[in-house]
Protein backbone atom coordinates (compact mmCIF):
# COMPACT_ATOMS: atom_id res chain seq x y z
CA UNK A 1 0.00 0.00 0.00
CA UNK A 2 1.04 3.63 -0.40
CA UNK A 3 1.52 5.48 2.87
CA UNK A 4 2.01 9.17 3.58
CA UNK A 5 3.14 10.62 6.92
CA UNK A 6 2.22 13.98 8.39
CA UNK A 7 4.74 14.98 11.09
CA UNK A 8 3.83 17.91 13.36
CA UNK A 9 6.25 17.72 16.29
CA UNK A 10 9.75 19.10 16.84
CA UNK A 11 12.55 16.57 17.34
CA UNK A 12 13.80 16.04 20.93
CA UNK A 13 11.10 18.41 22.25
CA UNK A 14 8.25 16.14 21.21
CA UNK A 15 8.04 12.37 20.62
CA UNK A 16 6.10 12.64 17.34
CA UNK A 17 9.05 12.67 14.91
CA UNK A 18 10.76 9.84 16.77
CA UNK A 19 7.61 7.70 16.58
CA UNK A 20 7.14 8.67 12.93
CA UNK A 21 10.65 7.59 12.03
CA UNK A 22 10.19 4.22 13.68
CA UNK A 23 6.83 3.81 11.94
CA UNK A 24 8.36 4.74 8.57
CA UNK A 25 10.89 1.93 8.85
CA UNK A 26 8.17 -0.50 9.93
CA UNK A 27 5.94 0.19 6.91
CA UNK A 28 8.90 -0.24 4.55
CA UNK A 29 9.84 -3.47 6.33
CA UNK A 30 6.34 -4.79 5.63
CA UNK A 31 6.77 -4.10 1.92
CA UNK A 32 4.67 -0.95 1.68
CA UNK A 33 5.65 2.22 -0.16
CA UNK A 34 6.25 5.52 1.61
CA UNK A 35 5.01 8.13 -0.87
CA UNK A 36 6.12 11.10 1.17
CA UNK A 37 6.56 12.78 4.52
CA UNK A 38 5.01 16.22 5.05
CA UNK A 39 6.35 18.37 7.89
CA UNK A 40 3.91 20.92 9.31
CA UNK A 41 3.57 22.98 12.50
CA UNK A 42 6.61 22.46 14.80
CA UNK A 43 7.53 19.47 12.62
CA UNK A 44 9.36 21.85 10.30
CA UNK A 45 12.27 21.86 12.78
CA UNK A 46 13.08 18.30 11.65
CA UNK A 47 14.59 19.84 8.52
CA UNK A 48 17.04 22.18 10.23
CA UNK A 49 20.58 21.60 9.01
CA UNK A 50 21.89 23.44 12.07
CA UNK A 51 20.34 20.94 14.50
CA UNK A 52 23.31 19.77 16.60
CA UNK A 53 22.46 17.12 19.19
CA UNK A 54 25.24 15.79 21.45
CA UNK A 55 27.57 13.46 19.54
CA UNK A 56 26.33 10.29 21.25
CA UNK A 57 22.75 10.99 20.12
CA UNK A 58 20.97 10.30 16.85
CA UNK A 59 20.70 13.30 14.55
CA UNK A 60 17.10 13.03 13.46
CA UNK A 61 17.56 15.20 10.36
CA UNK A 62 20.24 12.73 9.19
CA UNK A 63 17.84 9.87 9.88
CA UNK A 64 15.18 11.43 7.62
CA UNK A 65 17.82 12.12 5.01
CA UNK A 66 18.89 8.46 5.06
CA UNK A 67 15.26 7.47 4.52
CA UNK A 68 15.23 9.66 1.43
CA UNK A 69 18.52 8.32 0.13
CA UNK A 70 17.69 4.67 0.67
CA UNK A 71 14.03 4.70 -0.32
CA UNK A 72 13.54 7.85 -2.38
CA UNK A 73 11.02 9.27 0.08
CA UNK A 74 10.18 12.95 -0.66
CA UNK A 75 10.57 15.18 2.41
CA UNK A 76 8.25 18.18 2.02
CA UNK A 77 8.19 21.04 4.50
CA UNK A 78 5.34 23.57 4.70
CA UNK A 79 6.84 26.89 3.67
CA UNK A 80 4.56 29.15 5.74
CA UNK A 81 5.09 27.11 8.91
CA UNK A 82 8.84 26.92 8.26
CA UNK A 83 9.51 30.62 7.58
CA UNK A 84 7.66 31.68 10.70
CA UNK A 85 9.83 29.32 12.76
CA UNK A 86 13.15 30.27 11.19
CA UNK A 87 13.59 27.32 8.82
CA UNK A 88 14.67 28.81 5.49
CA UNK A 89 15.95 27.43 2.16
CA UNK A 90 18.70 29.03 0.07
CA UNK A 91 16.23 30.65 -2.33
CA UNK A 92 14.00 31.96 0.48
CA UNK A 93 17.10 33.30 2.21
CA UNK A 94 18.02 35.19 -0.96
CA UNK A 95 14.49 36.53 -1.26
CA UNK A 96 14.65 37.91 2.30
CA UNK A 97 18.20 39.19 2.06
CA UNK A 98 19.70 36.63 4.47
CA UNK A 99 23.22 35.35 3.96
CA UNK A 100 22.49 32.10 5.83
CA UNK A 101 19.96 29.32 5.35
CA UNK A 102 19.26 26.11 7.26
CA UNK A 103 17.14 23.92 4.97
CA UNK A 104 18.64 22.07 2.06
CA UNK A 105 17.93 19.06 -0.14
CA UNK A 106 16.53 16.47 0.22
CA UNK A 107 14.13 18.63 2.27
CA UNK A 108 11.97 20.88 0.08
CA UNK A 109 9.91 23.90 1.03
CA UNK A 110 6.46 23.62 -0.48
CA UNK A 111 2.88 24.83 -0.02
CA UNK A 112 0.17 23.20 2.06
CA UNK A 113 -1.42 22.03 -1.20
CA UNK A 114 1.31 19.39 -1.32
CA UNK A 115 -0.22 17.81 1.79
CA UNK A 116 -3.55 17.45 0.00
CA UNK A 117 -1.81 15.99 -3.05
CA UNK A 118 0.04 13.50 -0.84
CA UNK A 119 -3.20 12.47 0.80
CA UNK A 120 -4.80 11.89 -2.60
CA UNK A 121 -1.88 9.78 -3.80
CA UNK A 122 -1.89 7.57 -0.69
CA UNK A 123 -4.22 4.92 0.62
CA UNK A 124 -3.14 5.79 4.15
CA UNK A 125 -2.12 9.11 5.70
CA UNK A 126 -0.86 8.71 9.27
CA UNK A 127 -0.36 11.74 11.51
CA UNK A 128 2.32 12.00 14.20
CA UNK A 129 1.79 15.02 16.45
CA UNK A 130 1.95 16.18 20.05
Amino acid at each position, binding site marked *: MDYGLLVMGAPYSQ*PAPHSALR*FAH*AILARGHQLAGVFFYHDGVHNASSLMTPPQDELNIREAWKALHEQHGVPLDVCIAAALRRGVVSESEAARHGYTAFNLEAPFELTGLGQLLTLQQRCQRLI*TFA*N
Partner: protein
Amino acid sequence: MILHILTTAPLSDAARQAEQAINPGDALLLIEEAVSAALQPDLDCWKQTDYPVFLLEEDLVARGFANAASHHRLATVDIEGFVQLTEQYEQSITWY
Protein backbone atom coordinates in the same frame (compact mmCIF):
# COMPACT_ATOMS: atom_id res chain seq x y z
CA MET B 1 -13.89 2.11 10.58
CA ILE B 2 -11.29 4.35 12.13
CA LEU B 3 -8.08 3.64 14.01
CA HIS B 4 -7.87 6.29 16.73
CA ILE B 5 -4.28 6.92 17.80
CA LEU B 6 -3.99 8.61 21.19
CA THR B 7 -0.67 10.16 22.24
CA THR B 8 -1.61 11.80 25.55
CA ALA B 9 -2.33 10.70 29.11
CA PRO B 10 -5.67 9.00 29.92
CA LEU B 11 -7.38 12.01 31.49
CA SER B 12 -6.15 14.65 29.03
CA ASP B 13 -8.39 16.79 26.84
CA ALA B 14 -7.30 14.80 23.78
CA ALA B 15 -8.27 11.51 25.43
CA ARG B 16 -11.72 12.86 26.23
CA GLN B 17 -12.11 14.17 22.68
CA ALA B 18 -11.12 10.80 21.21
CA GLU B 19 -13.82 9.22 23.36
CA GLN B 20 -16.42 11.59 21.86
CA ALA B 21 -15.40 10.53 18.35
CA ILE B 22 -15.00 6.78 18.64
CA ASN B 23 -17.70 4.44 17.32
CA PRO B 24 -18.32 0.74 17.94
CA GLY B 25 -16.15 -1.15 15.46
CA ASP B 26 -13.37 1.43 15.58
CA ALA B 27 -10.12 0.71 17.41
CA LEU B 28 -7.99 2.69 19.85
CA LEU B 29 -4.19 2.54 19.88
CA LEU B 30 -2.33 4.12 22.79
CA ILE B 31 1.18 5.39 22.00
CA GLU B 32 3.76 7.70 23.60
CA GLU B 33 2.44 9.34 26.79
CA ALA B 34 -0.87 7.49 26.41
CA VAL B 35 0.70 4.17 27.39
CA SER B 36 0.60 5.26 31.04
CA ALA B 37 -2.96 3.89 30.82
CA ALA B 38 -1.26 0.52 31.36
CA LEU B 39 -0.84 1.46 35.03
CA GLN B 40 -4.57 2.02 35.48
CA PRO B 41 -6.66 -1.09 34.80
CA ASP B 42 -9.75 0.70 36.15
CA LEU B 43 -9.95 3.22 33.31
CA ASP B 44 -13.18 3.22 31.29
CA CYS B 45 -11.34 2.32 28.10
CA TRP B 46 -10.31 -1.04 29.61
CA LYS B 47 -13.82 -1.83 30.79
CA GLN B 48 -15.87 -1.09 27.68
CA THR B 49 -16.37 -3.71 24.98
CA ASP B 50 -17.40 -1.54 22.00
CA TYR B 51 -13.94 -1.33 20.49
CA PRO B 52 -10.54 -2.97 21.00
CA VAL B 53 -7.77 -1.02 22.74
CA PHE B 54 -4.06 -1.67 22.19
CA LEU B 55 -0.87 -0.39 23.83
CA LEU B 56 2.25 0.14 21.75
CA GLU B 57 4.82 -2.34 23.07
CA GLU B 58 7.95 -0.28 22.31
CA ASP B 59 6.59 2.74 24.18
CA LEU B 60 5.58 0.57 27.14
CA VAL B 61 9.08 -0.88 27.35
CA ALA B 62 10.76 2.53 27.08
CA ARG B 63 8.70 3.87 29.98
CA GLY B 64 9.01 0.75 32.11
CA PHE B 65 5.32 -0.23 32.02
CA ALA B 66 5.57 -3.50 30.06
CA ASN B 67 5.28 -5.64 33.17
CA ALA B 68 2.29 -3.66 34.41
CA ALA B 69 0.54 -4.17 31.06
CA SER B 70 1.15 -7.89 31.04
CA HIS B 71 0.19 -8.19 34.71
CA HIS B 72 -3.16 -6.53 33.98
CA ARG B 73 -3.50 -8.65 30.78
CA LEU B 74 -3.84 -5.62 28.53
CA ALA B 75 -3.53 -6.04 24.76
CA THR B 76 -0.33 -4.80 23.16
CA VAL B 77 0.97 -4.50 19.60
CA ASP B 78 4.53 -3.87 18.50
CA ILE B 79 5.41 -1.36 15.80
CA GLU B 80 4.71 -3.99 13.13
CA GLY B 81 1.30 -4.56 14.71
CA PHE B 82 0.74 -0.79 14.55
CA VAL B 83 1.35 -0.97 10.78
CA GLN B 84 -1.03 -3.94 10.54
CA LEU B 85 -3.74 -1.94 12.30
CA THR B 86 -3.33 0.84 9.74
CA GLU B 87 -3.67 -1.79 6.97
CA GLN B 88 -6.84 -3.09 8.53
CA TYR B 89 -8.56 0.25 9.29
CA GLU B 90 -9.00 2.49 6.26
CA GLN B 91 -8.75 5.73 8.20
CA SER B 92 -6.78 6.90 11.18
CA ILE B 93 -7.02 9.96 13.41
CA THR B 94 -4.27 11.01 15.77
CA TRP B 95 -5.38 12.69 19.01
CA TYR B 96 -2.68 14.78 20.68
